[in-house]
């Protein structure tokens, strides 16, 4: 089966720094994919290229193996989209808007749609213009999920959602994934989507830096460890253990960073009297930064602040 999304050398130049450069991205179906990067990195540009709202300078993009320009309507029937700057027909009520978009789609399961409206506690009788940003987002989410698309593209969907809607949103994404659909979420905040995504791609300054499974990243999780021993220990015992880095042994205190499993280190430490053990698991954000960030990014990441990928 063709991947849900596939780009080859996708490039969009705007003359200056904006745009994207030679993006080769493959998103297989049936997963929740996080598309991460700082603001202005090219996330929205990539999404707008996938939707054929703008045309590439060079390169190709396919959705379900179909050309995003030539086979536009066939893709639109199977895809939905919630833009970051969600703009809706403000003079309509939520119900009217959903009716209109449903009619444009062709067929919408009304019972399923009404179920979504109830789940998100949306009042569909209110005019869009009278809704708060969070409530507008709800309308956008219902519109995107009601057609049960095979691919849902969400540009910064979590901005402005209250915790309740955020939770429902995550359930919707997971349900869609469990039914074999694909969810593509862009975000500039890894912590907001890391527990949701199966895989993440990171884009920076228009270039796709990496695509990783969240599970693989977690295997490479970095932990900072500090062990207080009841007796002085020798650094030699711990040096060279798999995954152990930045080892410092000072009398009875050991400090190090461990990548991946703690097993070897703990077994080695067990030979001595262990008085105390502190461990700090670094966030995925820090891992990402450690692997793919720029120099300043690593520092900001290791400093431990759950900041932006762009730190």
């Amino acid at each position, binding site marked *: 089966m063709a991947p849900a999304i596939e780009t080859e050398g996708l490039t969009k130049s705007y003359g200056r720094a904006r745009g994207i450069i030679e993006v080769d991205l493959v998103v297989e179906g049936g997963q929740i994919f996080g598309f991460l990067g700082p603001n202005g990195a090219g996330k929205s540009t990539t999404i*707008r290229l996938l939707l*054929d709202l703008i045309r590439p300078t060079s390169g190709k993009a396919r959705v379900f193996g179909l050309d995003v320009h030539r086979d536009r309507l066939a893709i*639109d029937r199977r895809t939905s989209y919630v833009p970051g700057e*969600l*703009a809706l*027909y403000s003079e309509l009520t939520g119900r009217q808007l959903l009716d209109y978009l449903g009619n444009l789609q062709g067929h919408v399961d009304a019972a399923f749609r009404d179920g979504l409206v109830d789940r998100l506690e949306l009042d569909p009788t209110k005019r869009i213009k009278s809704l708060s940003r969070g409530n507008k987002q709800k309308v956008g989410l219902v519109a995107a999920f009601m057609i049960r698309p095979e691919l849902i593209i969400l540009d910064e969907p979590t901005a402005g959602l209250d915790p309740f809607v955020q939770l429902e949103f995550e359930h919707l994404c997971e349900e869609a994934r469990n039914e074999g659909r694909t969810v593509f979420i862009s975000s500039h905040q890894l912590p907001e989507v890391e527990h949701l995504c199966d895989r993440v791609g990171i884009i920076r300054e228009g270039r796709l830096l990496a695509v990783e499974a969240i599970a693989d990243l977690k295997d490479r999780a970095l932990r900072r460890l500090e062990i207080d021993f009841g007796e002085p220990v020798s650094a030699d015992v711990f040096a060279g253990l798999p995954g152990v880095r930045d080892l410092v042994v000072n009398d009875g205190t050991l400090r190090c960073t461990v990548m991946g499993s703690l097993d070897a280190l703990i077994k080695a430490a067990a030979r001595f009297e262990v008085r105390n053990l502190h461990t700090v698991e670094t966030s995925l954000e820090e891992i990402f930064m450690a692997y793919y960030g720029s120099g300043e990014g690593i520092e900001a990441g290791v400093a431990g602040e759950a900041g932006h990928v762009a730190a």
Partner: protein
Amino acid sequence: MLLRNVFTKTVRDLRWPTFWVSLGCGAMTAYFAILFPTYSKLIDLNSLLEKMGPAAKLLGASMGDASTLVGFLHIELFSMILPAAIAAFAAGVASGFTAGEESRGTIDILLSYPISRRRIVLEKWLALSLACVVAAVVLWVFAIIGAAISASVLPGDRLAAALVMLVLLGLAFGAIALAISAATGNRGASIGLTVALLVVMYLVDALSAIVDGLGVIRPLSLFRYYMGDDPLRAGLNFADAAVLAAVAAVFLVIAVVAFERRDLAA
């Protein structure tokens, strides 16, 4: 019911503008038709226009005979006010069709549903055409009723012919505005340029009656085709109507092609 597709949604969007344009133009025409006998008793418009000389032609009184209701309506309404009103309506509405969706940002959502850019332009255009026809029909009814009240002569078929030309003129300027806004995404520029073109074309046509040199470029003015053959008296001139229709069609095609090719505003 009116949210079935882009055409019906646009009809819905245009319902109040269409209502007011229809009512405004209709009431104005009825007013002139009802008061015409009183006017013509009070003032001898023809001699007044004669005294004004060439200046009268600038006001559009190039071929009117103000002693009949037909001539009176031609001078007072059909030469300047009605075409300006319908062209401004059509251009104002059409300039917002794609550029309005773009500036509001709704185009992103709209295009993510299975509807092509071409279809969006054409369905909206169809709604504008309907709105112009509705305005013309309302105007016809008001004018005929007004003429009946004042017991003046106003042949319905000739009035209809003039209204066909009026609608075609409006659609021609509407298509020009649509083409500019679809190609640029800039509604303000579209309205500005179209109104400027409207004024220049009006002046070229009106002034060509008194300035010899302008006769050469008069065929470039859409007003030459609109009332050039006086449809209120002579009936429909199919060649003139075809020119206006062709201009509208050409600019509609330009609008579709330009909109299909463009990167849309984020």
